[in-house]
Structure formats: C-alpha cells, structure tokens
C-alpha cells in the first residue's frame, strides 16, 4: 500500500473556491465538509434532546406533579424521542463518519454523487425544521410518543401531522445517503481494494445503507397514510372505520426495528476500526465480522413484531418473531467475541478512543442481553411498557451508538481537525459519564422490574428511591457530557497540532495528512493487502 503523508493540496478546511466562510460550507460538495455539517447540526439537536431528558428526570424527583403539566410531560418525551431517534441516532454515524471517512477508507476522492450528498443534508435540515415547527404550530407539540401509534395519533389534536411529515422528509435524506454509499462502495474502490480488503467500517456502512434503502420507504409511506387518515379519514388504521391499528404497528416496526440496526451497525464498524489500532493486531475473524454485519442487516429486518407481543398478535406470529429475535443475537455476539479475541495478546495502547470502545462493548452487552431476554414472550409480557424497556434501549442506543460515536470522535478527531485534545480531560469526563449513565439507566431497569410503567409523569412512593438515584445519575451524565464536548470544542480551536498518524493506525486515512487535503489523495492508492496489516507488532506477540 502506498503512503503519502505530504501533499501539495490545501486542507479541506481552507476555502479555495470563489465562495468564502459560511457560504463556502453551505454550498460545498466535499464529503468531509458535509460530514462536519451533519455533525454540527446533529450535536445541536442532541443537546436540545439531552436538555429535555434532563427536565423529565427533574420531574421524577418528587412523587407529585410539579414543574410541568402532564400534557407537557407527554410532549417532552415525544420530542425527546423524535429528536434523538430521527435527528441524532439514525443519521448519526453514517452521516458523520460515513461521509467523512468512507471515500478515504476505500481510496476515493469523494462519494459517487457529491451533489446528491449535499442535497441529502439540506433535506435533513428541512426535516429538522419541520420537526421543530411542529412543536410550536397547530395544536402544539405532539404527545403520542415517537412511535405515533394509531389510533391515538389519528385523533389527538396536537400537531402530529407536521411531526410525521418531518419524519417522512428525514427518511428521504436517509435513503439518499444510503444510495450514495452503496454506489460509492461498488464503483469507487481504489485499484486492488477487493471486497475483503475493505476496512470493516465500510462493510458496516454498506449493510446499513441497504437497510436505509429497503426499509425506509415502508415507514415513509406509513407516515403518509397517517397524514391522509388525519386529513381525509381514509380509515386504514382507524378501527372505527374498519381499519386495523395493528397494521400501523407492523408497518411502523418493519422500518423502525431495522432502524435500530441502522443505528448500531455503523457503531460496530467504528469499534471494529478502533480495536485493532490500539491492540496493534489484525482484527480477529475479518470475514466473520463482515458477514455478521450483513446477517444483522438481513435477520434484523425480520424481527420487528417483538415490539408487539402484548398487542394481540397471533400465536404463530409470536412464536416466529420470538425465534427470529433469538437468532439475531448470534451475529451480534460474533462481533463481540471477535473484538475481545482481537484484544487477547495484543500490545494494548490504552488511549481515550479505546477506553470509550471498551465502554461501548460493556454497555452494549448489557443492552443486547436484556434485549434477548425480551425476545422471550414469558418475560416480555411482564416488562412490556415499563421502565425496563426504557433502560434497555438507552443501553443500546446511548451506551451503544452514543459511546461509539464518542469513541469515533476521539479516534478520528486528530485527523478531522488536525489538532489533538487533552487526553487527561477526556479521561476525567469518562468517570461522571460512566457512573451517571449506569445510575440512570440501570436504575430505570430496576424500576421496570419493580413494575414502574413508562411515560407516567408521576410515580408511586415505592418507586421513589430508584427515581432519585436515576435522576442524580442524570446529573453526573450531563456533567460528563459537558466536560467531554467542552474538551473537544476547546481542542478544535486551541488544541496542539496533531501528527498525521498519532495512533499508529494502518488504514488509508492514516496515510494522508491531518487534516486531509481537499481531494484526499495526491494520486489514488493501489491496494495490495488487507486493511489491518500490523506486521511488526504481530512479529513481537
């Protein structure tokens, strides 16, 4: 593999076109800049949703109503979910790291359709604006929960129509990105970069892109049907008109369960890049990880009805979906075993990205195993719609995707901005984040096992102690987040200049300067070997 750390091209952060400053960024077709546009927008939404979550926890500090009304509480958990899911976690890693690094990882100068890429960001922002507008227009913020379940979503006077339309528009952004990534991986791989020479992040993004492309249209059309039902009363989901509300749940989860894998697969890709770099070893079981990504995408698309076990599904359906849910745990476990096996006898370099990657593995295992529990009907009916579910999916979504996003940011930060952050400050931020996270979400799982239902704005006295523990945990968590992002934002402007390859990585992004030049490579590299070729280190072990 050829390396070329020096280049005559200016950095992608330098404006060289006719437009300067903000206009240069808003009209850019450079995949790296578009990745950063997504990052800045999504982190803004993330902190808004964190703030909402923080307020919801404050509400649970007492057993009686205070601070906000019940209706406002309903609006808050809906908006928190809509923002976190549709504006942060679903686009999350593919839109940021996929855009920024996919072309570099495969040795290309850009994605296949750079203009379409920029369009997808504008569509994303349009969807986000609609989502925000839905809070303040019509009948006020939707109060249905992020799932918009019928028939309530058809009847409520709140502004469900606009919120649903926002999700519809955001779906288009997701599909455009998916099309772009699939085409890029098929058409723009560097000479010699065969499928099994691609870094595993690319496999994760490829699997994700297929889910985005195949599953998103289903939720898009379902949401259009909700709008048609609200405006014209067509009666598809309304039982009063002969419709089937369970059909809504089916159609919604046919997308929204695979969406969980849209969220977690790229996260797994990030972790798969980080582990070998800091273990200084080739990844254990390359093909097993690549195929497990595709298997998760495939089988994960067929398990949606486990969200509906208590809704009155047929017994046959319950058995089928319970079995399929158990099966999807297998490829996920393959990845976990392979990450741990890669670390075994590695020359571990315990840097911040590895700390967060290991945090991901720990938290994801808790989230994943509690998910397998829920695949069993006997357990599911008892904990359905309790705080256990809330705790579980936060372990997967935040402990999984969130921590992987943070790990990825730490790993690629020196490459993206050409500066290095304070490692001590990051270690310091990890402690409150980790302790707060587990107090908050493990506390929620205990509450769920005790019988605390989700989405209640008050609680009975027997749940009070654990609610206080969870709320105090949320304070630690927010403190950790502020320290983490404060450190990174400071480093973006004032951090020391980073080396081109501070971690000793061997994939293509570490062969180019930090920050990358505008067209990534002086000349397209020729690939002659696999992506994780740690020859010297292997010799030592």
């Amino acid at each position: 593999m050829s390396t070329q750390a020096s280049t005559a091209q200016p950095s992608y952060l330098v404006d060289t076109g006719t437009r300067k400053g903000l206009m240069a960024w808003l009209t850019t077709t450079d995949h790296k800049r578009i990745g950063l546009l997504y990052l800045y927008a999504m982190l803004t939404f993330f902190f808004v949703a964190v703030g909402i979550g923080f307020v919801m926890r404050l509400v649970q500090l007492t057993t009686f109503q205070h601070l906000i009304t019940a209706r406002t509480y309903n609006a808050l958990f809906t908006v928190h979910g809509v923002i976190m899911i549709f504006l942060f976690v679903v686009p999350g890693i593919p839109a940021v790291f996929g855009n920024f690094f996919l072309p570099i990882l495969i040795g290309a100068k850009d994605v296949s359709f750079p203009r379409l890429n920029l369009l997808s960001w504008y569509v994303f922002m349009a969807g986000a604006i609609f989502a925000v507008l839905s809070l303040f227009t019509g009948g006020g913020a939707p109060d249905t929960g992020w799932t918009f379940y019928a028939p309530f979503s058809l009847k409520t006077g709140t502004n469900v129509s606009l919120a649903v339309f926002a999700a519809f528009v955001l779906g288009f952004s997701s599909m455009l990105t998916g099309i772009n990534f699939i085409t890029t991986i098929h058409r723009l791989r560097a000479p010699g970069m065969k499928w099994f020479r691609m870094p595993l992040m690319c496999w994760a993004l490829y699997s994700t892109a297929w889910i985005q492309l195949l599953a998103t249209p289903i939720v898009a059309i379902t949401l259009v049907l909700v709008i048609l039902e609200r405006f014209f009363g067509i009666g598809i989901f309304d039982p009063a008109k002969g419709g089937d509300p369970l059909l809504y749940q089916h159609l919604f989860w046919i997308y929204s369960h695979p969406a969980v894998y849209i969220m977690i697969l790229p996260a797994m890709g990030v972790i798969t890049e980080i582990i070998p770099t800091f273990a200084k070893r080739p990844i254990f079981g390359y093909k097993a990880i690549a195929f497990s990504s595709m298997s998760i995408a495939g089988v994960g698309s067929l398990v949606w009805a486990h969200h509906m076990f208590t809704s009155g599904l047929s017994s046959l359906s319950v058995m089928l979906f319970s079995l399929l849910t158990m099966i999807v745990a297998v490829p996920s476990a393959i990845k976990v075993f392979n990450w741990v096996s890669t670390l075994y006898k590695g020359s571990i370099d315990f840097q911040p990205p590895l700390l967060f990657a290991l945090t991901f593995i720990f938290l994801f295992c808790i989230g994943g195993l509690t998910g397998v529990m829920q695949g069993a009907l006997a357990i599911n009916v008892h904990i359905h719609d309790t705080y256990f579910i809330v705790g579980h999916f936060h372990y997967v979504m935040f402990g999984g995707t969130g921590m992987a996003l943070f790990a990825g940011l730490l790993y690629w930060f020196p490459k993206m901005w050409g500066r290095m952050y304070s490692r001590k400050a990051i270690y310091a931020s990890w402690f409150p984040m980790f302790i707060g996270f587990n107090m908050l979400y493990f506390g929620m799982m205990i509450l769920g096992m005790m019988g605390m239902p989700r989405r209640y704005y008050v609680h009975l006295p027997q749940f009070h102690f654990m609610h206080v523990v969870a709320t105090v945990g949320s304070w630690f968590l927010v403190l950790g987040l502020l320290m983490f992002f404060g450190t990174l934002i400071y480093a973006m402007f004032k951090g020391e200049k980073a080396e081109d390859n501070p971690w000793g990585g061997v994939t293509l992004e570490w062969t180019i300067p930090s920050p990358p030049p505008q067209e990534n490579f002086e000349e397209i590299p020729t690939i002659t070997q696999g992506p994780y070729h740690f020859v010297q280190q292997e010799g030592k072990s």
Partner: protein
Amino acid sequence: MSEHVEQASEHAAEHPGYGTFIKVWVALVVLTGCLVGMSLVSQTYAVWGLLTLTPLKAGLVFYFFMHLRYEGPLFKVVVLVTLGTLLIFFALLFSDVAFR
C-alpha cells in the same frame, strides 16, 4: 460526437416497438379490470388480487417501460432482492393477520 451518436443508436435499437408497449398496456388494463372485478366479489378476493396481480403489473412496468429487460444481471439481481425482501415481509405479516 460519433461515439455519442453510436451510443444513442445502440440505445434506440434496444427499444421495443410501439406494438410491444401497446400489448403491455393492454395487459395492464386487463389486470386492473380483474382487480376491480375481484374487489367487487369479496374483500378476500380483493386482498389476494392485490397481493398477486399488483406485483405482476409492477413487474411488467419494471421489465418493459423501465427497461429492466435490457439491464445487466446485477440490476436484475438487485430488483429481485428487493422484491424478495418485500415477499418475506408479506409472509411474516400474514403470519399474524391470517392466524389472529
């Protein structure tokens, strides 16, 4: 320039004649008539009609009007994967609807 003309003429040679288009159109109209007829008989017939005849109609449109017929094997496989996925979704959905 000449290459462009050559490509255009090659592309034109791939086009079926108007006769084929009209035959496909007639088939689509007949299938639509069948669907309407089945929906008038009973709801069950309507559902089965929609599940079987509509994909057939979509297939005709893909194959002739959208030129899938002239595409390479990769395109055809991708379309088949997509339709296969849809079929699996239907089957799993009906494991609930048909046995509820």
